């Protein structure tokens, strides 16, 4: 028996969420008194893989097969299945990324495992009873689900589990994966990265604008505030519907769900659908000229005032604060 954690990498580097997943998977392995095995597919830097012992991996299996250079969901699911079977892994953990959304169902079916996606906390394991919480109703509630299958595939939301490290070594082994042509069900023509910015679901600081900004011509305020704080841009649905900002920035019930450490909502009233997408934020700051705006009911801190006047002052103060070092 073992717990297996699958790691994604961006080029040679493991993502921050990979270390979160290893820490999480190690905690799960401890709960069931078993070992943690980590799996990397692609060309992750071996020195990065070697550090995984510090986060709890007893062994790291590295797969570097040319056919797997581009992500292909069925092929990756097949490889993870092969490793899970070799290691007798009853629990497989992945970070809840777009790749995971694409491969986890097939992986679960191949392993005859229950799939529980988008968790942000450890399961409760008492003998044969396994239960775990996940967000439902687009973040308006949690459901605790009991899982009765022997095997589980779990996807963990990024930025929800604290990385925990010690000082241990690990063993890196090559794993010779079998990939058949039938597993490569589509071809990747091109990968286009808009930028090297941290993607919203992984962001630790998010600065978001709503209709209170009055128009796209004022968005430099949001951009400057994001730069000052070191954060990523987001917006409310009316703003992306109006074409002021791209769909990719829309956070909310029918947009992206985020869980940053700090969420700054500027000129956003706080409609229930918007709150649903941001309620997992650890700290929420709201800036709105309406003291009765619903956003203040979920905010931890706020400033009542016109965004166009407040934001420049806030940016100044942040710059001074950061200059002090």
């Amino acid at each position, binding site marked *: 028996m073992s717990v297996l954690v699958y790691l994604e990498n961006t080029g040679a580097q493991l993502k921050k969420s990979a270390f979160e997943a290893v820490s999480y998977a190690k905690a799960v392995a401890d709960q069931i008194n078993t070992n943690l095995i980590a799996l990397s597919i692609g060309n992750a830097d071996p020195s990065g893989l070697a550090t995984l012992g510090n986060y709890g991996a007893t062994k790291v299996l590295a797969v570097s097969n040319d056919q797997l250079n581009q992500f292909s969901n069925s092929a990756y699911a097949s490889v993870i299945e092969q490793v899970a079977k070799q290691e007798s892994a009853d629990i497989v953990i992945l970070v809840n990324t777009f790749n995971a959304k694409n491969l986890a169902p097939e992986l679960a079916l191949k392993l005859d495992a229950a799939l529980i996606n988008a968790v942000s906390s450890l399961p409760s394991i008492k003998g044969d009873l396994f239960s775990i919480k996940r967000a439902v109703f687009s973040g308006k509630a*949690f459901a*605790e689900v009991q899982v009765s299958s022997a095997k589980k595939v779990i996807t963990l939301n990024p930025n929800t589990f604290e990385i925990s490290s010690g000082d241990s070594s690990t063993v890196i082994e090559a794993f010779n994966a079998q990939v058949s042509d039938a597993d490569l069900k589509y071809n990747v023509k091109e990968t286009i990265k808009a930028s090297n910015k941290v993607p919203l679901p992984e962001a630790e600081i998010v600065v978001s604008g709503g209709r209170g900004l009055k128009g796209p011509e004022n968005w430099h305020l949001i951009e400057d505030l994001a730069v000052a704080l070191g954060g990523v841009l987001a917006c409310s649905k009316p703003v992306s519907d109006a074409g002021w900002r791209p769909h990719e920035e829309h956070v909310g019930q029918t947009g992206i769900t985020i869980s940053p450490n700090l969420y700054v909502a500027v000129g956003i009233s706080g409609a229930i659908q918007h709150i649903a997408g941001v309620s997992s934020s650890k700290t929420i700051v709201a800036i709105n000229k309406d003291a009765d705006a619903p956003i203040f009911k979920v905010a931890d801190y706020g400033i*009542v005032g016109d965004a166009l006047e407040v934001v420049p002052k806030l940016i100044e103060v942040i710059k001074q604060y950061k200059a002090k070092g």
Partner: protein
Amino acid sequence: MNILVCISNVPDTTTKVTFANNDTEFNTAGVQYILNPYDEIALSKAIELTEGGKGKVTVIHVGDVSTEPTIRKALATGADDAVRVNTSPIDGLFVAKQIAAYAKDKAFDMILTGRESIDYNNGQVAGFLGALLNIASVSVIKSLSIEGSTAVLEREIEGGKEVIGVNLPFIASCAEGVAEPRIPNMRGIMSARTKPLQVIEPVAEISPIKTIRFETPSAKSAARIFSADEADKLIEALHSEAKVL
């Protein structure tokens, strides 16, 4: 071209979510149900690809008879016919197995779903369907175009997108950007009443996942409000109290 669109029936986005029966069930009292917004996008794309005699759109829904108004809405939007599998949608794999049992001998060129339903946010049906039917499946696409017997899809990835070429038949789950959601017009609403809605019985399946309890997040204590001149106090609080700066 024959397209199958999988739809779900969900509480509308303004719903205040509460639970009943000792927090073991979603409280449906007074809740308005709608066609899942992402499924509307998938349906609109399917109609766009088939209108003008270029093909046919079938919608399938796993749900009890109370969901039929939503299925009629999909017909009103422009689907040609509908199938309802007469059982509650227990979880993603259960729903996928019901749909696969129906679809496996029907030679659809494409099966489209929404990227996830806004009630349970699983987003698993497209992935499970691909594995059950042994057909290419791509989740969370932002655009789809057909060129003869192949499709070009843009799949969302962190910070960007991946352009994928895939042969028909394929399965995809649709996100914002694939199509503008269509609104049923008067003629659509009238014709929806007589378009075929076939009810079929489910295949027997069980799920290893059971919801034992729901929780609503506890209400937060009141926000600390600062005046616009106290921005420095806000930053100080974010640093020393919230520890996020």
